[in-house]
């Protein structure tokens, strides 16, 4: 076992640090309270969506509906939650319950999660269009205040990221319940033999994913103050990339909440970094992909070396 494969969190941390250093070198003015907040502002909803995706990847599934789901939540937040909070809250709770039910159905009927979630993404997208046919709505005042709060020493985006990482680390890595959930991804037969219901555990994992998806949508509206049915579509791929960048694996229940948050930050930063490079927007998405491939290649090389020794 090499040093890197034993401390899986190191590589994501180094990637972020290198990218951050490069950004500061390009644009020294970013090295300030205000600059950091600007850089990482939009990372908060992405980090939450990445955590949602991580819950699904943790149980060996993959969720292709995160983006559409977050968009739908954003639309509900900008309309119902603002106009009649009770109905809004009920709708969001119903969405979380639906997510949990989806997990139970996927396990009980042995459906491929990739197909079910792809199908559901159209349902979420349709509902979002139904609720908010054209961009608009307004963020509830308290949410806006929460997302623009200015804590001392560190900008909101950084504080929120650290908070998300700590809470999910305690929930998934430290708690007994989270351990059992990770066990589902590791060897679900062992859990069945121990007398646990994998269907129920998967429902919990999906329910948690729904919860974090809802939080992501709300955070997004708090930042943008309005919503649109397509506002977060790219979150699906960003969240998958974030989990993997953060040291997670597609199978085997190997996930790291801290890593996932760092992965989300890295992805957000990569976009800003490319703007600082004065790269034409036409090339930016492709370059973002190139950075992703670069980091993943580095990881693969380290893990190969780890396996060889």
């Amino acid at each position, binding site marked *: *076992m090499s040093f890197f494969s*034993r401390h899986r969190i190191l590589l994501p941390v180094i990637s972020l640090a290198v990218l951050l250093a490069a950004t500061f070198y390009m644009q020294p003015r970013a090295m300030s309270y205000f600059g950091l907040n600007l850089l990482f502002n939009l990372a908060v909803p992405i980090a939450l969506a990445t955590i949602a995706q991580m819950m699904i990847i943790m149980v060996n599934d993959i969720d292709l509906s995160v983006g559409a789901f977050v968009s739908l939540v954003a639309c509900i937040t900008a309309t119902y939650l603002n106009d009649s909070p009770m109905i809004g809250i009920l709708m969001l709770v119903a969405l979380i319950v639906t997510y949990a039910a989806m997990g139970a159905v996927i396990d009980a009927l042995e459906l491929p999660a990739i197909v079910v979630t792809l199908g559901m993404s159209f349902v979420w997208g349709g509902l979002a269009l139904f609720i908010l046919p054209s961009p608009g709505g307004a963020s509830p005042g308290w949410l806006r205040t929460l997302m623009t709060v200015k804590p001392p020493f560190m900008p909101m985006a950084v504080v929120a990221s650290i908070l998300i990482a700590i809470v999910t680390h305690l929930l998934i890595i*430290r708690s*007994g319940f989270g*351990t*059992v959930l*990770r*066990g589902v*991804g*590791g*060897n679900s*037969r*062992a*859990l069945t*033999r*121990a*007398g*646990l219901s994998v269907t129920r555990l998967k429902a919990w994992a999906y329910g948690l994913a729904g919860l974090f998806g809802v939080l992501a949508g709300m955070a997004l509206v708090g930042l943008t103050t309005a919503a649109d049915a397509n506002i977060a579509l790219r979150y699906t791929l960003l969240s998958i990339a974030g989990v993997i960048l953060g040291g997670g694996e597609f199978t*085997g*229940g*190997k996930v790291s909440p801290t890593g996932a948050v760092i992965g989300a930050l890295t992805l957000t930063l990569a976009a800003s970094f490319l703007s600082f490079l004065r790269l034409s927007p036409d090339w930016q998405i492709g370059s973002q992909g190139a950075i992703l491939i670069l980091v993943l290649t580095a990881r693969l090389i380290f893990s190969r070396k780890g396996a060889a020794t």
Partner: protein
Amino acid sequence: MRAGKPACAPFLEYEARMSEQESAPIVSLTDAAKHFGPVRALDGVSLSVRPGDCLGLVGHNGAGKSTLVYLINGGLAPSSGEIAFPGATEAADAGVRSVFQELSLCPNLTVAENLRVSLRDMKGASWRRTAGDIITKSLDQIFPGHGIDPNAEIDSLPIAERQMVEIAIGFAPRGTKARLVILDEPTSSLDAGIAEQLLTHIKKFCADGGAVIFISHMLGEVFEVASRIIVLKDGGIVAERPTAEFTRRGLVEAMGHVAAEGTEAAASAQRHTGEIVIQTEQGLTARKGEIVGLSGLAGHGQAAALAKLYLSSSSNWRAGHRPKCVFVAGDRPRDGVLPLWSILFNMSISLLRQVDAWGWIDRKAERAKSEEWKRRIGIRTDDVENPVLSLSGGNQQKVLFARALASTAPVVIMDDPMRGVDVGTKQDVYAMLREEASKGRTFLWYSTETEEVCQCDRVFVFRNGEISAELTPPNITEERILEASFHMQEAS
């Protein structure tokens, strides 16, 4: 009988009977049977395990060992008969634990976390430390000086240590105390010293009133540790006696059919002078025109050896159009049939190179070839255009044979190809293999059924991933194969 003086013998016998009644069995099976469709995996087994028992369970492949284990630990419900846990409602309450050969740990969790998975009522913020203490204590008891860190991820441990952790979790208190621990090949990946520690612990555990069911192919270990040995054959108990009444040879004989054949094998002992076409590092060799059998207990490396051999000689994209080997799969759904295709397409995929013209498939030639093979191998269908899944298992297997034999490859590798095939088909295929072999084809044949292996010109017996014996005609008997499959030396 521990009766010393004849005068008080009746009294002692009475006392022994009384204490036997007091120590109620942990589990008792009455005429328990388990059928999977038409397959009788277990056929009316009666058995009871009492505190202090250490039961050795031996039997050849498919004798019903695993099915029996699953019935006892509650993993399967019996088709008929009864399984009772006196004083408890189900296996878990009765303190029945199983340690399986294929590891059932979560590799992404730490040692302590794995205990948490099987121990549900572990609460509180410091559960991690509690679990670590429990597992360390259990490991210390069984394997003194083990040096396993309870916070190490299972992934990072070598296989022997994983097996040790699994055994330790089996014996650890988890809500209920462990009363009956079923160990399925527990020493398969342990070295001799560690295995000895385990055997010592089992003896102590049984002396303290626990019970163990010990399954192993290392007969020396079974003799050392078991107080009673049960021999399973074809889903039934053929012998159940105290260990002292068995000899090693007697045990092996009890496991096998008492076959006095050998005539057939002798008849085929003619030409072994063809050139060597296969030679592996492991020592596996095969000559031209030979049928070479691979035998031994299931999962001892035969399938892996074949897969390695096949992949090394076929999966090269520069290899050209003439494959050296073809593969007949035994696990049809996994690596055999193409379920959405017709019988015709399933058969012809290996001979597309023979029927194409400038890269286009000659449908007529393809069809003619397939019809020919359908006739030769006797596939029961009125039209080769029918979907392949419309055939019975045995006929699907014939399609796979046709696919392999229709190619021009000189070597045919068969991975337990007769799984779930009826007797009639088997006879057809045996005859066809003989005919093809006499034309100069080489067959490598892994089979879990000794009767099939006895048809071969030469047999390699595998044990623990290595070849433990090479047998040639007069010696290819079930007894010899069993002897080589089981470890006969003293476990010391």
